[in-house]
Structure formats: structure tokens, C-alpha cells
């Protein structure tokens, strides 16, 4: 790998990551000097800092050409860049939603762990080397295990953290075994070189497919695809709500980033085989996720199953194995991240006051707080795929990708699934708008971080859902590097 000679632009390219580390250190220092009463403001520091990094990244770190850097460890391209910016956005929103939660928002280490995890995700999105990729995945996961179990006084949170750790460690070990086999067969860990080595036919397609399945276990866990979805409902239910939101959005999107890169860039020749497997997984993921969501009484569990189902929709774009398909997946994830963060934001804001995550406790919400009601309406209808919200156009593009690839059956499965989805989203809205409750008279104050975060997200949902062209251009250029 001696051909990689340090060039100054490498530093600029990873400027967001560097600043992220600086921000994490700054928060640790503030945590020491700020008095306990005002430590909640660390959330503003984190959110503001992330916002600033996002802006600086957009200005300075835009990829000019596709290239490998840092000894072939990282790739500079639009795919990675799009996802990295998305993670920064999600982390900023999560920081805001966490601020006003007791035993969470006033603890510096919470923000630091979250930033560390965000750093891992950003590296995941741009890893071009299996070793770098594995390290990035672990950097993402380990802080998340701690964050899921952060509320140590609550049994459910502890259980969530522990469960997440066990499942995560297991699948990550299987994936690592797959990585080691890939290296053993090819003699390289670079994702892009793997492709050319395997094209020489070192091993049979069947063997290689077996290895890819091992790798898929790790990725499938990250995106919570069936049959690796078991952890999601329990972990979401027990985790602090903003962390559940972070897990279901940024962490899942990071999984998709590596899935797209590894499968589409490194193994395009095997696409008919893994395409069939992922198509089957997508069908199972959508259907099972939606069907199980129907039966849920707890809103976080319901959203966990719903987020499993959404992973299924996003996988349709991967299955299409086309420029349109990959950009559909990227676009889907952008809209999904914004929408689901809004849904979890509302839940955090409501749960903070009512102390309950039961769907029944949402009765009368629109009378208690009309604005939270509207926010919930917008985010849930967007999840259901209704215009003029973001969820509609992205489902449209994903199904279009399936039809273009000649997989009309998959589009039909997706369409039928979105009907089931509509049913349970509407059921929740029925509680919000229709049912009465005894607590209607009690106020439901919405603090400033929630107000700011939700307004940004709701505007984002509507913006994605009405002005499509820039988003399609962005996700199109993200997908372009894969083919």
C-alpha cells in the first residue's frame, strides 16, 4: 500500500471527524467546570457544536472526486459524505431531545458517548477497508450499548443495554469471521481490491456466497432485518427514548451505508445471488415488522417494529441493484431518519410528562397540546407514506426502483405492506385525536429543545415531501460512485 502518500486534502476531508473529537473533549471539560444545575446546557453545546460541524463540513469537506485516502482506509465519495452529514444532523437532534430528561440530560458523559458513537458511524460510512470497517462498527456499537443501559436505576434500561450488548457481540463476531475469510481467500482487506481479486475466480461463487452470508449477519443486525431483528423491540422499549430514536435512525442508516458499499461496490458480480437473498429478507422484514407492529400496546415497541418494516422498504432499493435503486435507498433513509426522529421526539416530550409509553396514554393528546398532536400527525402520516410528507415520495421512488428492475412482485409486497402500516399509524392517531382522557386538563409543557428540534424536523419532513429535486440529486450522486 505504499502508493498512498500523504496529501493535505486528506485532513480537510475528515475535518468533521476531527472537529467531532474536539467537541467531545470540549464537553468533557465543560462537564468538569459547569455547576450541576446548568449542566443541562451541555445539550445545547453538543447540538450547537454538531450543527456547526455540519455547516463546516458542507462548506469545506464536500468530496471533489472519488478517491481513497489515509492509506486506503477511508474513501472520499458522496455516498459517505451524505451519510456523514445525516449522522451529524441526527446526533444534534438527539442531543436536544435528551437535554430535559432526568438523569440523562445533565450528565456530560452521555453526550460524549453519543458523540463517540456518531464518530464511529461517520467512519463506517466512509470505510474502504475491512479492518477500518470493523473498528468503526465497534466504535459505533460499544457506546450505544452503554447508552441503551444508561438509566441504571431502571431494570428495563439495564436489560436493554445488556441484551443489545449480547446480540451485538455475537453478530459482530460472526461478521468478523466472515471478514477473516475474505482476507484469507484474497489476501487483501481493501474493499475495492476485493472485487478485482475475486473476479479472477480464486474461490467458487458458492463459497463466496457463504462468506457473504456471515458478513450479512453483522450488517443485518445493524439494520435490524429479519431474522436478526429480535433485539430491537426490547432494546427500544428499555432505552432512554432519544437513544431509541438514535438507534432506529442513525445507527440503522449507518448499517445501510456499509451494506450498500460492501455489496454493491465489492461484489457486483454476485448480485443475482445476494440480490435474491436480500429480496427474500426484505419481504420477510417488511411483512413481519408490520404484522407484529399491529399487536403492540407500547408505542416504543410499535415504533421498533415499524422501524424494522422500514428497513425492509429501504432494502428494496438495494435489491434492485441499479443506480436508481441505490439512490432510492439513500433517499429513503434521509426521509426516514428525519421522520422517525420526529416521532421519537414527540414520544420523548410526552413520555417526560406522562411517564408512560403506553399507546393508551396518548388519549386526548391533541386537546392537551395541539402542537404536539400536529407533530405526531405529520410524522406518523409521513411514516405511513402519505403526501405531502417525505414518506410518500421516498416510497414512490423505492417502488419505482423495484418496477424498473422488473420486480413488480416486490413493489406489490411493499405496497400491501404500506396498507398494514397505515392501519396501525392511524390507530395511534385515533388515540391522539379522538379518544378522551381524564388528564386532558393537565398542561403538557413542551420545553424549548423539543420545540426547536420538532419544528426543524417537521419542516424537514414537509420540505422533503414537496421539493424533491435536490434530494434526488444528492442521493443520485451518492449512488453514482457505487457503479
Amino acid at each position: 500500500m505504499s502508493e498512498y502518500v500523504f496529501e493535505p486534502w486528506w485532513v480537510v476531508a475528515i475535518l468533521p471527524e476531527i472537529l467531532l473529537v474536539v467537541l467531545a473533549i470540549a464537553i468533557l471539560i465543560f462537564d468538569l467546570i459547569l455547576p450541576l444545575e446548568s449542566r443541562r446546557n451541555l445539550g445545547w453545546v453538543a447540538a450547537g457544536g454538531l450543527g456547526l460541524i455540519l455547516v463546516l463540513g458542507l462548506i469545506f469537506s464536500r468530496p471533489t472526486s472519488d478517491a481513497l485516502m489515509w492509506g486506503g482506509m477511508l474513501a472520499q465519495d458522496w455516498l459517505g459524505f451524505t451519510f456523514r452529514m445525516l449522522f451529524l444532523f441526527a446526533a444534534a437532534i438527539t442531543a436536544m431531545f435528551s437535554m430535559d430528561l432526568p438523569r440523562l440530560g445533565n450528565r456530560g458523559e452521555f453526550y460524549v458517548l453519543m458523540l463517540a458513537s456518531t464518530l464511529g458511524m461517520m467512519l463506517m460510512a466512509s470505510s474502504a477497508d475491512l479492518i477500518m470497517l470493523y473498528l468503526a462498527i465497534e466504535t459505533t456499537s460499544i457506546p450505544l450499548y452503554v447508552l441503551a443501559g444508561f438509566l441504571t436505576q431502571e431494570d428495563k434500561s439495564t436489560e436493554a443495554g445488556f441484551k443489545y450488548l449480547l446480540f451485538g457481540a455475537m453478530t459482530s463476531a460472526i461478521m468478523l469471521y466472515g471478514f477473516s475469510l475474505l482476507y484469507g481467500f484474497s489476501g487483501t482487506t481493501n474493499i475495492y481490491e476485493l472485487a478485482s481479486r475475486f473476479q479472477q475466480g480464486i474461490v467458487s461463487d458458492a463459497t463466496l456466497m457463504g462468506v457473504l452470508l456471515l458478513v450479512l449477519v453483522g450488517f443485518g443486525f445493524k439494520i435490524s432485518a429479519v431474522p436478526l431483528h429480535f433485539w430491537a423491540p426490547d432494546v427500544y422499549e428499555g432505552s432512554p427514548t432519544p437513544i431509541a430514536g438514535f438507534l432506529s435512525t442513525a445507527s440503522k442508516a449507518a448499517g445501510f451505508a456499509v451494506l450498500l458499499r460492501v455489496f454493491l461496490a465489492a461484489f457486483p458480480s454476485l448480485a443475482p445471488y445476494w440480490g435474491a437473498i436480500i429480496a427474500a429478507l426484505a419481504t420477510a422484514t417488511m411483512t413481519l415488522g408490520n404484522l407484529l407492529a399491529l399487536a403492540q400496546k407500547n408505542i416504543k415497541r410499535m415504533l421498533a417494529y415499524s422501524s424494522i418494516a422500514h428497513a425492509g422498504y429501504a432494502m428494496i432499493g438495494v435489491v434492485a441493484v441499479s443506480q436508481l435503486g441505490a439512490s432510492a435507498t439513500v433517499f429513503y433513509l434521509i426521509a426516514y431518519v428525519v421522520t422517525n426522529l420526529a416521532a421519537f421526539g414527540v414520544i420523548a416530550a410526552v413520555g417526560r410528562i406522562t411517564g408512560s409509553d403506553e399507546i393508551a396514554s396518548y388519549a386526548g393528546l391533541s386537546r392537551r397540546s395541539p402542537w404536539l398532536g400536529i407533530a405526531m400527525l405529520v410524522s406518523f402520516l409521513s411514516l405511513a407514506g402519505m403526501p405531502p410528507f417525505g414518506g410518500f415520495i421516498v416510497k414512490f421512488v423505492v417502488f419505482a426502483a423495484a418496477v424498473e428492475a422488473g420486480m413488480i412482485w416486490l413493489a406489490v409486497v411493499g405496497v400491501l405492506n404500506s396498507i398494514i402500516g397505515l392501519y396501525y399509524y392511524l390507530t395511534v392517531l385515533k388515540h391522539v385525536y379522538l379518544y378522551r382522557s381524564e388528564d386532558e386538563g393537565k398542561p403538557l409543557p413542551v420545553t424549548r429543545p423539543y420545540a426547536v428540534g420538532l419544528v426543524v424536523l417537521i419542516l424537514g419532513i414537509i420540505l422533503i415531501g414537496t421539493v424533491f429535486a435536490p434530494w434526488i440529486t444528492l442521493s443520485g450522486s451518492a449512488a453514482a460512485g457505487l457503479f
Partner: protein
Amino acid sequence: MQFPILSIIVFTPIITGILILLIPAERKTEVRVTALAAAIFALALSIWVYFSYDIPAGGYQFIEKYSWLPQFGISYHVGIDGMSAPLVLLTGVVMFTGVLISWGLDDRPREFFAFLFILATGVFGVFVALDLFMLFFFYEIAVFPMYLLIAIWGWKETREYAAMKLTLYLFIGSVIALVGALAMYFTSGLGTFDMLELEKAGFSTDFQILWFPFVFFGFAVLGGIFPFHNWSPDGHVAAPTAVSMFHAGVLMKLGAFAALRVGIMLLPEGAKFHMGWIILLTLVNVVYGAYIAMVQTDFKYVIGFSSVSHMGLVAMGFATLNADGMLGAGVQMFSHGVMTALFFAVVGMVYDRAHTREIPRLGGFRKMMPLVTLAFIIGGLVSMGMPGLSGFIAEFPIFMGVWGTAPWIAIVAAISIVITASYIIRIIGRVFFGQVPEEFEGHITDVSVLDKVALVLLSAILIVVGIYPAIMTPLVESGVNNILRLLGGA
């Protein structure tokens, strides 16, 4: 560039809806006044558009086109022809009268009017859409507020069930049609969703025969076509008055219109192949709907099933694929929209005072509400197809057209008029004439001035179109010619 009048019509309601949401919840009068002002504005513009459509020129007019998503060939492309112009006017009328009728609504009027107006934007958008994607976009916008409007403000007994049933039915239909639309997009190879381009795509006959049923029925679900009509009476009955008016008056036309625009106009060969049996389904609609209406005892269910029957006539007119049938169907969409809005307004007024809709328990409302009685009789005569009223102008050409393709169907369908007469006359006799039951004696008040304005406007339209059909038929005819051109002469 000309004045973007259609865009203003489309976006006035939704912008008003958002503004209404910003008004504090307690200031209910301001909410209502804002809603009324917007409704009058939209009505005025739709009247203006209707009368300034240049009939001799024909084709699509008031066209606006902006690129929306160039990568997919999606554009914001609007325009109206002779088919859609009356429907835009209809929506304006129903929106205006719906606001008047809902003036007294006291539970969260802010949210009510906001959702109602979002619905109105969806409806206007579908009627003026010339881009397939845009049509879907607005179609879905029209569907989901319906759920909330029925579930929140509807009739307590059945609202949750009916709202969910309706939403799922319509959503299933539309997403199935969506898959068909995607198939059209990729098969055409033109890379555009513009319907004026797709008309010329020249799809193979096999493709058209395969996809026509999906697209046609996907939309016709909302038009209440048998056997997918089941959601509609339940939905009508559970909905609050203004929403029933919107729902039966305008929304069902949305389904019929989209089935025409996307199904028949883009897949004409498929239409020719399948219409032979679809016309039989519409016959079931017409006769069976009327029969079920006759045996109902709930006033609102009678009207609900009568809508199924009358919308069957619209679909039947389309299914003839000839000039007479199409012309009749075009006028029937408008005429039925106004008529059924009038019916549901009357039902709502009676129910608000009597708190029951069981026909045997009502009686003598003529004494307390003379104007309402008169309006209902006019609507009833329209529904029976009495000459001199708009129903005749609509139904006569439909029967002529059906006679041209299958005379026996015309004969059987004509029976429905007799059945219609029987249930309408029964209602007039029982509800408005006859003895006033003791329980209502003395505490039934007449309707408010606003209600009267709405009723007078709706009745007047029915009469004007009836005695001066030239106000509408040449316009619809120009639209029909456009469709016949696609069907290949005839």
C-alpha cells in the same frame, strides 16, 4: 406567462388551512370567518374559470407547467378541459356550502376546517392534474384527512369503524393503481409522467389489457363501483354533515374522474377490451344500489346507497365508451355532486334537530322547515331524472348511450329510476309530510340563514342546469371529444 389561476385555486384551501391552525383555539369565530372568506374566494375563482373556458378552442386550457422532479420527468402540470371544468366548479360550490353548513360546529372547529381544507386542496389538485405523479400526490392528500374528519367529528356509533374501512379501501385502491402507473412509466420508455405525453406512448394491446383493470378499479373504488362500494354508505353515514357532502358530492367523483383520466384515456385499448363486462358491474351498482336504498330505514343510509346507485350511472356512462354515454356521465358527475350535497345537508339539518334518522320516527318537518322541505323535493326530483332539472340532462344521454351498445342493459337500468322514485317519495311523505310525532312537537326550530343560503344555492344550480343545459353540455361535449379522439374516432 398567464395568471396562474388554477394554482391559486388549488393552494388557497391548504394555505388557509395552515393559517387557520395558527389562530388560537379559543377564537372560534375568527376561524370560521377565515374559512368562509377562503371558500368564497375559491368559489369565485372556480366560477370564473368555468365561464372563461374557451369552448370552441377545446383541449386543455389555463395550462401551467413547472419542472418538479426532472430526473423522473415529473412536472407540476395543471390544466382543465371540458370534463374537469365542471368538477372544479362543483368542488368550489361544495366547499363553500360545506363551510356554511358547519358554522355551528363547536368541537375544535380550527382543526376541522384545517383538515377539510387540506382535503379540498387534494380534490382540486386531482381535477386539474395533467401529470400522473401529481395526480397521485393530490389523490393521497385527499384521502387521509377524510380519516380524521370522520373519526373525530363523525357519528359516535360507527365512526371509528367506518373511517378506518374507508381509508384502507381507498388506500388499497390507490396504491394498486400506483403500481400500474409505474408500469406505464417504465414501459413507455419516455421518461415522463406527463399524461399528455403518455397518451401518445402507444402501449401494446397486451400491456393495456393486462394493466387496465388494476388502474381502472384502483381508482373506481373511490367511485363506489360494485363490488368495491362497501365502504361508501358506511363512510357517508358516519361522516359529519359537511364531510358527507364533500365525500359523496366530490370525493366519489375523484375516483370516477381518475379512472377516466388514467384508466380509459391512457389505456384506451384496455378499456375497449374490458368494458364489456365492466358495464355489467355498473348495472349491478345502479339497480342493486337503488334497491338497497329502498329497504333502508335510516334516512342517511338511504342517501348513502342512492349515491352508490347514481355513481353507478356515471361509471355506466363511461363504460359505453361512446359520445352520448360520456356526455351524460360528465354532466351526471356535476349534477349528482350538487344533488347529493343537498341531500346530505338536509339529512344533517333534520338529524341535528330530531337526533334520530329512523324514517318511521320522523314526520311533519314541512311545518317547521319549509325551505328545507322544498330543497329536498327539488333534489329528489333531480334524482328521479325529472325533465327540467339537471338529473334529466345527465341521465337521458347515459341511457341513450347504453341503448347504443346494449339495449337490454338500458332497460334494466331504467328500472332503477322507478325504485329511486319509490324511496324518494317515501321519504318526502314520511319525513316532511304527515303527522309531527309528539316528541318533536314545539321544540324543532327552523334552520339558520346560512343554512338557507347553502340550500338555495344548491337548488338553484340544479334548476339552472336543468332548464338551461347549454350552460354545461357544450363544455362537457368538448371534453368528451378529447376522450373519443384517444379511443380512436367513434
